[in-house]
């Protein structure tokens, strides 16, 4: 299968506001929110981006959606670099990539009815010839996310719906314009536990039906395991490990992935746990170490880690890992 999305050495830097901090520190400083992220995603594939808050996973998503302009690197979508798109080209690109964000309560205009909110993307992208046709499309979209009977939802305002229903409306809106890629950033973390499974199942079914390519951003590895065939673990703006989800979670190679996987509480109290302990202080992304960004917290740190930044290289079983514990010589030929 062909690659739908190829991200190469993607970067996003934010200059720190000049103020007290830079006056004290002197030099110009930047935050490296995304610091050289590369991955490829094939058509119909699903990628999970995992990591702690501040690791750059949401910024990566916003760069792919082109809600932000990259500071460096390329984003090839269907063979075309979209990193520098502007104007009508950008509008056309945005029809092909849609998103579902974390907070459904803030994702819809509170003064628009559900119908009006859902007509909006059709108007913006000039889909459908008449109002009747557009309303029909909206009705079909609501039906697909199981908000039925659809007519009862048309005149409702966001405050009249529950969180789970709102997130279904947001999903319907994203799919209305027939996108090729759907990016979902923590799509259920604001929802109640008993509602989450329904929304996850819906997203899984819809993306399978429509052979949609998906990216899920979540701190929850269990969610990524459920939704994604490929998992990438991010740390301080870079991917430290990426590979088939089951392989990454069951045989984590990078010490950070090992710590992350072992820290997830298991709902089964009978499960024995062998946690990997690491320090709970995360270095800030404006004082990036020269070597491996994880070196200061790594329980297996070596001398080389503090000097040389490890590259993301193929290891085994389709997993790529950025760690000196897996030197190139011992890896699979590729």
């Amino acid at each position, binding site marked *: 299968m062909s690659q739908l999305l190829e991200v190469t050495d993607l970067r996003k830097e934010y200059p720190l506001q000049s103020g007290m901090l830079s006056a004290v520190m002197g030099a110009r400083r930047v935050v490296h929110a995304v610091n050289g992220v590369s991955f490829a995603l094939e058509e119909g594939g699903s990628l999970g981006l995992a990591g702690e808050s501040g690791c750059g996973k949401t910024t990566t998503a916003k760069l792919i959606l082109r809600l932000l302009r990259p500071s460096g690197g390329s984003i090839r979508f269907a063979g075309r670099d979209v990193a520098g798109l502007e104007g009508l080209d950008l509008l056309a690109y945005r029809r092909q990539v849609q998103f579902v964000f974390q907070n459904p309560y803030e994702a819809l205009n509170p003064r628009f009815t559900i119908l009006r909110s859902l007509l909006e993307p059709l108007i913006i992208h000039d889909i459908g010839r008449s109002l009747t046709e557009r309303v029909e499309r909206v009705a079909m979209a609501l039906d697909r996310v199981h908000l039925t009977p659809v007519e009862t939802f048309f005149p409702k305002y966001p405050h009249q719906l*529950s969180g789970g229903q709102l997130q279904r409306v947001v999903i319907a809106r994203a799919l209305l314009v027939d996108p090729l890629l759907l990016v979902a950033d923590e799509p259920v973390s604001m929802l109640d536990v008993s509602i*989450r*499974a329904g929304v996850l199942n819906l997203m899984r079914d819809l993306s399978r039906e429509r052979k949609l390519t998906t990216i899920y951003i979540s701190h929850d590895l269990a969610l990524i395991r459920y939704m994604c065939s490929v998992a990438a673990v991010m740390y301080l703006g870079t991917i430290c490990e990426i590979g088939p989800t089951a392989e990454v979670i069951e045989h984590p190679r990078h010490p950070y992935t090992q710590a992350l996987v072992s820290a997830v509480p298991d709902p089964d109290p009978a499960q024995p746990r062998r946690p990997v302990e690491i320090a*709970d202080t995360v270095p800030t992304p404006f004082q990036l170490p020269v070597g491996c960004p994880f070196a200061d917290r790594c329980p297996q740190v070596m001398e080389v880690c503090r000097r040389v930044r490890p590259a993301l290289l193929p290891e085994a079983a389709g997993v790529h890992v950025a760690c000196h514990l897996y030197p190139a010589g011992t890896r699979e030929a590729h």
Partner: protein
Amino acid sequence: MPLLEIENLTVQYHTLHGAVQAVRGVTLSIERGRALGLVGESGCGKTTLARALINVLARNAAITGGAVRFDGVDLLQLSGGALNDYRWRRIGLVPQAAMDSLDPVYRVGDQLVETMRLRGGLTPAQARERAARLFALVGLEPTRLRLYPHELSGGMKQRVVIAMALALQPKLVIADEPVTALDVIVQHQVLRTMRELQETLSLSLLLITHDISVVADLCDDVAVMYAGRIVETGSVREVFAAPQHPYTMGLRNAFPSLRASSARLVPIEGYPPDLASPPNGCAFAPRCPFAVQRCWGDDPVLMPTGGGRLAACHRAMEADVLRIQAPQAFARLEATGSQAVEGGAPGGGIP
């Protein structure tokens, strides 16, 4: 005698739309030295219940009935001054989003010392000395006492707040979502600290959370709350291994698991009832695949089911059979999709 006994507690909120019954007759006890996890989704009344225990409810809320006995003394009968003696000294509270409740313009050590001086009557020197010991206890270097909240990470602030709750050596600590805003690694470390403290200080702990994995990780006992009621209690091991209430059964299949393969999740269809007008029968009946005629008219009470466990379900005696049918039964409700209607008509519940 249990350390804390809650008996038939009811709490109401007065709103513009009438009274909302947030806690509807909760009976629950916490044994000495044990950790009880209170789980439920948002709006089920778990935070209201916790705040009612030491009467720090919102202004429009009132306790309308029941008793809360701590070491045999009914806290609800105590007046302001006498109740104050229980707050902090005997019952410590780690409120929700506690780490944001630290005052940004004071050093964290000073805030800790102030609490001990005002509430515990310690001298400044005593308080400072104890603050250092408390910091060490919760895994913070005592040098950090001099820092301001913005200089600490989320995990560290949470540790400060836990230290504050422990400052006057309470016997019971109530912790409301103590690790919810924290990243998974930090969450794990804070939970581990709490477990160690609970064991070394032989504290009783009431942990309130929506996350059943946190309860599995930290608690001895669990109480599952739904629509203002406790629907099931027992030891964590037993309740999670063999739930007796359909709601608990449903929750077990509604979470993705990190370790298991990707068997399809089964949601609990529908939404919790509006507690401004609670249903006559079982509050879970509209979402329950096992509801029978009786469930719609007759609200089940929490009854012993053997082995120290309790469940509020008319069909609790059939739990072993229902548990096996649960995944398919909840999945059938998902397939009908009846939940999507706001305040939906009772779906395929009545056989």
